[in-house]
C-alpha cells in the first residue's frame, strides 16, 4: 500500500463520515462537492472534509483507492458510499437516512424530510 493509501485509510478509519471534496465544507470549489457538502451540512451531519485541491497526492490517490474517477467521494464508517449522483439519489430515496441510522451517525431527520419535500 502506498503512503497516500495508508493516509486515506487512517482518515476514513478515524472519522465516521469523511467527504473528499474540492474545496472545504465552508467554501466548496466545485458544484458537485458543494451539493454533497450542502446536504450533509443541512442534515446536521458531523463530517471531516478533505480538500483534494490542497494535496496533489490525495487528489489522485483517492481515485485509485476507491477505483472511482471523480470527486466528491463520501465515506461512512470507512466504506466508500458514492459520489454526487449516488448521494443525491440516496438522499431523495431515504437510503442515506437508513445508512446513517445503521452506522450510528447522528443526523437531523426533519431536515432530511425537508430536502425530500422540496425535491419531491
Amino acid at each position: 500500500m502506498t503512503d497516500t493509501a495508508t493516509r486515506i485509510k487512517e482518515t476514513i478509519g478515524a472519522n465516521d463520515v469523511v467527504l473528499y471534496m474540492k474545496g472545504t465544507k465552508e467554501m466548496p470549489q466545485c458544484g458537485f462537492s458543494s451539493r454533497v457538502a450542502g446536504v450533509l451540512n443541512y442534515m446536521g451531519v458531523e463530517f471531516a472534509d478533505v480538500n483534494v485541491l490542497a494535496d496533489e497526492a490525495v487528489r489522485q490517490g483517492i481515485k485509485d483507492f476507491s477505483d472511482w474517477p471523480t470527486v466528491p467521494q463520501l465515506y461512512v464508517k470507512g466504506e466508500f458510499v458514492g459520489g454526487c449522483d449516488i448521494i443525491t439519489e440516496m438522499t431523495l430515496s431515504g437510503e442515506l437516512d437508513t445508512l446513517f441510522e445503521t452506522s450510528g451517525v447522528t443526523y437531523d431527520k426533519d431536515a432530511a424530510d425537508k430536502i425530500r419535500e422540496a425535491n419531491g
Partner: protein
Amino acid sequence: MAILASEIEAMIRESFPNATIAVMGDDGAHFAAEVTDESFRGKNRVQQQRAVYAALKGKMDGANGELHALALTTKVPE
C-alpha cells in the same frame, strides 16, 4: 478538448451492447447519462457506475479528462 454526446453513448454501448442509453448535454463538457442494463441486477450503485466509468476509459480522469461532468444514473430494467 470537447467531446460529443454521441461519442459518450458509443463508448458506453461498446461495453453494454444491450443497454438503454440516453446521453444529454451539448456544451462539450457537461453531460447527463442514464444507462439501463440487465447486467446491473444484483449490483449496488457504486458497482454499477464503476462499470460505466470503466467503459469511458479514463475520459473522466482529472485534469486530462475531457469529461469534467457526467451526471450518471444507472438502472436495472423493470
